């Protein structure tokens, strides 16, 4: 070929080659060698060591008062499970940081001619009542990137709408018509299902049945997803390299966060995420998981393996499968397809909920979906690693009621038993408790410290902020997440109990924009915690004031639940921190081209008149376009009687019906104009 090979960045991800460690420390080298050669065994060993040591210390303390009682036994069981879970995460993170970082991508970008040789790929953007202009900003940015690098003929976008709100549906059409008014390639198509059967999985399945045969690959995005053109191309190229790969998941990185919560999460993902993902990739191998978006899928494999049945029994445990992604990955693996995670690819982004309430709403949905997966652990043949993924997904919510029960039992023990006995270590139970607390803190902090150190060491100084600023932000993030964790524990416990009691939640659209909560909102959600926290604090103070130290993070979070919710959700505070250089990520200080394009579309002035159902009914051109887009047919012989019902008086169902019935739309249009024109000519006649 004769062309020089060069390294280039995928989106804004900066892939940095890290020199092999020159440390003379033989122990560290040996540890790294073990982690690299036996990553799974290393993760398990760390998890077991953490769990074993902590549990032993805990049981030793519990037995110091004259043996283990029934409450000790129950508490001990919970503690073993929880520290095992904690140890698994710590192991993944530590091993991930000990593993070598991914090789810099040394392939050169494809020429437009080579790009045209790639198989046709559909980029699916399922939408459900999201802001159409926000979704369109991302799609336009990706489309322009692909057009620029010559991917116009290879890729085609599909906006797959399941929107049920008639006004948003009308706006989606208007935005799409606006977006496709140019002749730019890749093309963008729009389809709306009047009924969102089986939610997102049904949306994708319907696409596969209608158009799947046209495309070898599907790239599934979310309404808030954003991917760089180079990453989209590389995903297709990697699929072409191994025909047994059915799915490649590119981990999305959170961006565009305004609130303190969202900004803390995006900072955590950017700073701590890489090592954890590296460990996760080595843990999974070719049996990775699917996270529902920012992934490429082989259409043939998906169609053959991923038709999801309706589960027997009532919702939430039965009925439609709510969190389809984990199950689809398991089904692909069951048919011997490979599922991979490409943590070395950057240029993959998503947005997170802004306010605590939106975050909790999303978690409630996920909780139901993940607990439903417990169905599959024993009842169907799935690969072991996928069963583990399903179990982890469920346990990430089940852990909360376990923590809560553990806290309650600890309180009971504290109120009923003195801690004056001696442990087998030769120290008092009180001292051993302090040791356990310090050990727990070290274990919780160690992965973060390791991650920040690794981040600072592996990022060239010209591409990052000063180390002191990063450490300061890590401390700020740690405070925010430490205070948020007890809130999550409480709410997750409620979600788990509600799910097990058979209570359903609706899967509403997620709000990713600015939300300004009021004191009333925060108090309505947090008052129970304030009451519980007050009772617990008084009881502990009366019985054992020194134990307040143990419970201080929990009590601080619960007692201050309402202001904490407000502070974490505040976009003003988040922006203030951003303007003062706090919790910044590389994507903000130096945004990649696709993010710049998206931001440019965000900044466009909003049209003076919103595209709503009212406008669609009023404007004959918009109505004609809608009838054509939705492929509705009007009955040429129908002459519906004069409607006395104004659009503003219609129920939501009647408004939805309008969108799928051309005759009724004509009726509403004629009713509007007959009244309006009559008033007009009467006024002129006077």
């Amino acid at each position: 070929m004769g062309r020089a090979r060069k390294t280039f960045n995928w989106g804004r991800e900066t892939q940095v080659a890290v020199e092999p460690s020159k440390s003379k420390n033989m122990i560290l080298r040996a540890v790294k060698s073990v982690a690299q050669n036996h990553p799974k065994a290393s993760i398990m060993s760390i998890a077991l060591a953490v769990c074993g040591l902590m549990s032993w210390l805990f049981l030793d303390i519990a037995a110091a008062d004259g043996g283990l009682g029934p409450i000790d036994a129950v508490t001990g069981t919970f503690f073993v499970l929880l520290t095992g879970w904690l140890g698994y995460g710590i192991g993944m993170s530590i091993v991930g940081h000990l593993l070598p970082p991914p090789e810099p991508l040394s392939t050169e970008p494809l020429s437009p001619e080579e790009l045209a040789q790639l198989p046709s790929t559909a980029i699916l953007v399922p939408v459900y009542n999201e802001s159409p202009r926000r979704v369109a900003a991302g799609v336009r940015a990706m489309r322009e990137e692909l057009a620029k690098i010559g991917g116009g003929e290879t890729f085609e976008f599909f906006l797959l709408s399941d929107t049920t709100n008639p006004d948003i549906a009308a706006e989606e059409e208007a935005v799409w018509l606006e977006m496709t008014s140019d002749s730019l390639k890749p093309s963008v198509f729009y389809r709306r299902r009047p009924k969102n059967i089986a939610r997102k999985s049904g949306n994708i399945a319907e696409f596969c049945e209608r158009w799947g045969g046209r495309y070898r690959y599907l790239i599934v995005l979310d309404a808030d997803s954003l991917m760089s053109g180079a990453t989209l191309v590389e995903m297709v190229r990697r699929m072409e390299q191994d025909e047994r790969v059915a799915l490649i998941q590119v981990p999305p990185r959170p961006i565009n966060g305004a609130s303190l919560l969202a900004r803390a999460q995006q900072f955590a993902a950017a700073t701590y995420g890489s090592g954890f993902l590296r460990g996760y990739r080595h843990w999974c191998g070719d049996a990775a998981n699917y996270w529902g978006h920012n992934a490429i899928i082989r259409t043939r494999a998906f169609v053959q393996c991923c038709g999801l049945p309706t589960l027997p029994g009532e919702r939430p445990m039965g009925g439609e499968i709510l969190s389809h992604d984990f199950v689809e990955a398991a089904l692909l693996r069951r048919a011997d397809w490979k599922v991979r995670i490409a943590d070395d690819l950057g240029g993959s982004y998503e947005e997170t909920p802004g306010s605590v309430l939106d975050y909790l709403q999303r978690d409630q949905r996920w909780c139901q979906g993940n607990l439903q997966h417990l169905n599959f652990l024993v009842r169907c043949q799935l690969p072991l690693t996928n069963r583990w993924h399903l179990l982890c997904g469920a346990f990430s919510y089940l852990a909360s009621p376990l923590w809560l029960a553990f806290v309650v039992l600890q309180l009971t023990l504290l109120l009923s038993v003195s801690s004056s006995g001696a442990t087998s270590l030769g120290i008092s139970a009180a001292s051993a408790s302090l040791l356990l607390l310090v050990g727990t803190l070290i274990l919780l902090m160690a992965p973060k410290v390791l991650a920040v150190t690794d981040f600072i060491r592996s990022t060239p100084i010209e591409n990052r902020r000063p180390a002191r600023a990063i450490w300061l932000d890590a401390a700020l993030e740690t405070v925010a997440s430490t205070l948020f964790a007890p809130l999550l524990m409480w709410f997750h416990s409620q979600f788990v109990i509600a799910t097990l009691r058979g209570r359903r939640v609706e899967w509403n659209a997620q709000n990713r924009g600015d939300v300004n909560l009021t004191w009333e909102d925060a108090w309505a959600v947090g008052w129970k915690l304030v009451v519980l926290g007050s009772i617990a604090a008084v009881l502990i103070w009366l019985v054992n004031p020194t134990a307040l130290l143990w419970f201080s993070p929990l009590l601080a979070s619960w007692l201050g639940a309402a202001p904490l919710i407000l502070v974490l959700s505040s976009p003003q505070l988040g922006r203030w921190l951003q303007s003062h250089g706090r919790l910044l990520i590389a994507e903000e200080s130096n945004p990649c081209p696709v993010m710049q394009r998206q931001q440019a579309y965000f900044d466009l002035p909003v049209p003076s008149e919103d595209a709503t159902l009212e406008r669609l009914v009023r404007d004959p051109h918009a109505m004609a376009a809608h009838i054509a887009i939705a492929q509705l047919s009007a009955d040429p012989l129908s002459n519906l009687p004069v409607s006395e019902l104004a659009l503003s008086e219609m129920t939501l169902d009647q408004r939805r019906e309008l969108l799928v019935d051309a005759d009724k739309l004509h009726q509403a249009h004629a009713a509007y104009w007959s009244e309006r024109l009559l008033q007009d000519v009467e006024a002129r006649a006077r």
Partner: protein
Amino acid sequence: MSTVIEPQSLADAQVVLARRALLRYVVANGVDDPEQAVQTTHELVEAALHQISDDVVGRDRTRSIIYFGVQAYLKRPESRFHDLERLFAVPNEATAPMRLQDLHEPPIVVRPEFYVAAWRRTQDVFRQFAYSMRMF
């Protein structure tokens, strides 16, 4: 300019008002040629009058003429969306339907001997562990 001779039935005040209104609607929605607009309006009024019974009088009659006139206009080709090619660039090309997977087979099989063996093995592990601890 040709003269349109209106039948007597169209000449009452309500019809005149309705004609004016419909003319405005037709001109605003795609019929640019004035003569054509007048002709189209005439046809719409005529079509509307066929839908309305003689019992409807006064303001309701005017409103009904406009209403059915607008409905009649919406059935004409002038009111349709013309750039259809842009909307339907992707032909339907069906692939095989999604194959539904069975997630509930085989049923849970209870094999007592498996659980007995697992229990014995667990006891062995604990016994060996206890023995090794004593040795330590």
